[in-house]
């Protein structure tokens, strides 16, 4: 009995020792992997550099957060001090246009990644395609490269393009959550307008009214949603989206201006079961 107790005691001490060890290790070697959770979807090579493009879940129609890094073909080193900009272009039969996209910024001063977003409002098809022109400057020298990129249609409805009652052409895109949960989810969306074929500025001060519904459950909805709004001009819109169960959800939308005027979308009622603009997904 006594030896047994001793053994148990020894095991306990060892267990404690090991637990504390592993904790220390984490503190000592903070393994930061810049590429954690990212996968490379494209590599563009010119004579001087190779540009690697990364995303979380591949690129498709809708809002895409894209990260890139630039490798010097001679040294094999990643360039940490470039100024980068990009221009996505849709080549259609009769015309060419761009889409909403952000500036490209360095993530961390001593890191190698640059990031930004691009909202592909339409998918490619057999005759129409997207390409991406990347301009970058390293130590005063300007470089450029252009490559076609694949933008397949998304299985879920993640972006709406429409003309509002004010005659303006808008693009509203779903950003977050990537992995919806049965919970109150933090929701992010973006709102842009088409100024001309090449200019898509962020729309400021609007409200994206959301009404999550389950058409398969008699258009069941969820409580305590918070309509996404902007906290800082130029930013994406943040709100809260409640999902009461797993399954197929349709997030009905209405776009409201700062004074509350609805420029697009309908409120859901017994007779109106779906808005003319919506996102959907299932999980």
């Amino acid at each position: 009995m006594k030896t047994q107790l001793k053994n148990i005691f020894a095991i306990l001490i060892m267990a404690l020792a090991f637990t504390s060890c592993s904790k220390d290790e984490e503190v000592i070697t903070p393994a930061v992997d810049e590429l954690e959770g990212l996968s490379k979807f494209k590599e563009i090579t010119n004579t001087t550099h190779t540009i690697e493009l990364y995303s979380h879940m591949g690129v498709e129609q809708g809002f895409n957060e894209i990260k890139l890094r630039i490798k010097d073909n001679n040294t094999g080193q990643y360039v940490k001090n470039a100024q980068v900009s990009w221009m996505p272009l849709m080549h259609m039969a009769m015309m060419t246009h761009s889409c909403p996209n952000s500036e490209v910024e360095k993530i961390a001063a001593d890191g190698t990644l640059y990031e930004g977003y691009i909202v592909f409002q339409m998918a490619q098809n057999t005759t129409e395609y997207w390409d991406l022109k990347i301009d970058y400057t390293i130590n005063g020298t300007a470089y450029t490269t252009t490559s076609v990129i694949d933008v397949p249609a998304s299985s879920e409805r993640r972006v709406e393009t429409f003309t509002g009652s004010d005659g303006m052409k808008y693009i509203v895109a779903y950003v977050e959550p990537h992995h919806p949960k049965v919970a109150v989810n933090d929701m992010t969306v973006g709102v842009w307008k088409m100024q001309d074929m090449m200019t898509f500025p962020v729309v400021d001060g609007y409200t994206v009214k959301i009404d999550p519904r389950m058409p398969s459950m008699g258009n069941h909805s969820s409580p305590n949603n918070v309509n996404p709004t902007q906290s800082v001009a130029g930013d994406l819109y943040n709100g809260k989206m409640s999902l009461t169960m797993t399954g197929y959800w349709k997030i009905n939308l209405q776009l409201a201006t700062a004074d509350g005027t609805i420029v697009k979308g309908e409120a859901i009622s017994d007779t109106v079961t779906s808005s003319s603009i919506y996102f959907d997904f299932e999980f």
Partner: protein
Amino acid sequence: MKKILFTVFLVPLFSNVFAQETSKDTLKPLQMEEVIIIGKKAQITDKQSKTLTSIDDYLQKSAKVDMIKRGAYAWEPIINSMPTERTLITIDGMRIFGACTDKMDPITSYVEVSNLSEATICSGQEGACFGSTIGGSIDLKRNQNSFGNKKWDFNLNSGFESNNQQKIIGTAINYANKLFYVDTDFMLRDAENYKAGNNQEVLFSQFRKMNFSATSGFKLSKNKLIEGSLIYDKSTNVGYPALPMDVSIAEAIINSLKYEYAPLNSIVTNWETKFYFNTIMHRMDDTRRPFVPIHMDMPGWSKTYGYYSKINAKHESHNLLLNLNSFYNKSLAEMTMYPANPNENLMFMLTWPDISTFYNGLFLEDNYALNCHSSLKFSASVGSHSNKVESQFGLNSLQIFYPEMKAKKDRFLKSFSGNYNYSENGLEYGFGAAFGERAPSVTEAYGFYLFNSFENYENIGNPNLKNEKSLEGNAFVGLKKEKINIKMASSYFHISNYIVGKPDASLVPMTIGATGVKIYTALDYATIFNVSLTSEFKFSKQFKWNSQLVYSRGKDFDNVNLPFISPLNYSTSLAFAKDKFSSEVVLQGNAKQTNFSAVYGEDKTPDYAIINANFGYKFNFNKSKLITKFGIENIFDTYYSTYSDWNNFPRMGRNFFVNLSIIL
């Protein structure tokens, strides 16, 4: 005055062999010389009119108990007009919690009449011995064999009911010697759909149930006993005609280990400690229903671990009872819905998000004899009650409604009661007052989109509910003479923070066709008043006339009627028994329900009256016996429904039954 207010004696069939030991029936602590086991009530066996009927049927004979019926099976007992949440139902002191979010499995459905010897029904706080309650308690007491001369005992039971072709078959095999006993019993029931009056078939009212139980005791010494017991119950294909879903399987395993000690010449007369564990699995099923808007699976699980340690003591004029008890329960229920489009993902939610309940309580009672005619009884209990949402998925779900909600919630529960009783020359009276509290049930605090087909609303739990508090007054007066026994008993409850669901118009229901969504909330208060008059007249040795009249009234603070409050309800029976022959005619009915509760989904229920008749004969062959019972229920095949029939579904029409018991 014993704390037992009303005792329904349950099937005592298997015990006739022990008839000669019935002197041990009465507990007389001071004379205790060995471990005393509550004896079987063998002597009343052949006085039961329908020995193999359901527990529910036995229980509803009490003036305090009624049954909410959702089908032919697994009725929900209500005590003093209060349903499961406000009552406490135990099996030999064990806490057990149903695993069905729709209350399709009250714990009375997991035992069989053959397991039990009696049920003790206590009104209000007199039932607080094993935990907190508002309305009262039922303790189902198991059969217990006694040590004795070496003896085998075989019984065979069989029954048939014509209306739903219910077939009953059961066996009991018992063995006892001076140091050891083992009791086993087995019962199987299988019933088809029943027919209401006028031969109208009630679809989905079939059921099948199998129950096995074993108890074994060892005498450790002259005054020490250890006993283990097991109940295994499995019901399959149980129809609930009043509900949108049936049950494909419900399964319970109920275990316990008891140690009992009866000290000699000590103020402690008996000390009983029991550890128990039970697990319940319940699976709702709609695959047999022809039209469902959306197919869904709704399984539920409930596991409970617990113990109690109960000490009886006697010191001078004080009869003391102390019970230290604790349980840990985990309740989990989920719902998976299958969309019409098979390519869509399944819809899944936790309707009971893995809620643990940990309760620790202490109950004290002193029954003090003032003199040989009158006594005072005081009781008090304290308990700590702690709930935790164990599932992160479930907590996230509930936080949709309650963003600030924490996983854990602690409560403190207390109760007090005092009673005065007087008895002299057959005149008895007594009165008392009490205060009690209860915590919200898992459904009330944590339920998630639970559909109530009676109100046609979905219900969302509310973890912020306050404890429900009850102030109670009770009184009775009776006359007990050789040929006459009349008793009038009454109780009044003033329940504050009365928990009910309240519609929230901003919420959109999930169940297709539901009217809306209710959130559990508390009314300022509600009041419930019950009064009953029971009488028994013995005209001669053979003739006996019993009557019972019950009136109840329940209102909230705004004078709105509460649901499931019985209208005036009566029953009267004339019994004749001579030698081995017994017979009985029973009239029972309800007056029209005028104080119905439209807000809670009730409508006016018309009055009804039905007549039943039965007779029995006991044959003796050498040492063996054959007990036969025959009867007709609802002789005139009346089509009727009562206030407590869910969604007004009709009750059984004319039914012939036969119950046979062979005792070898």
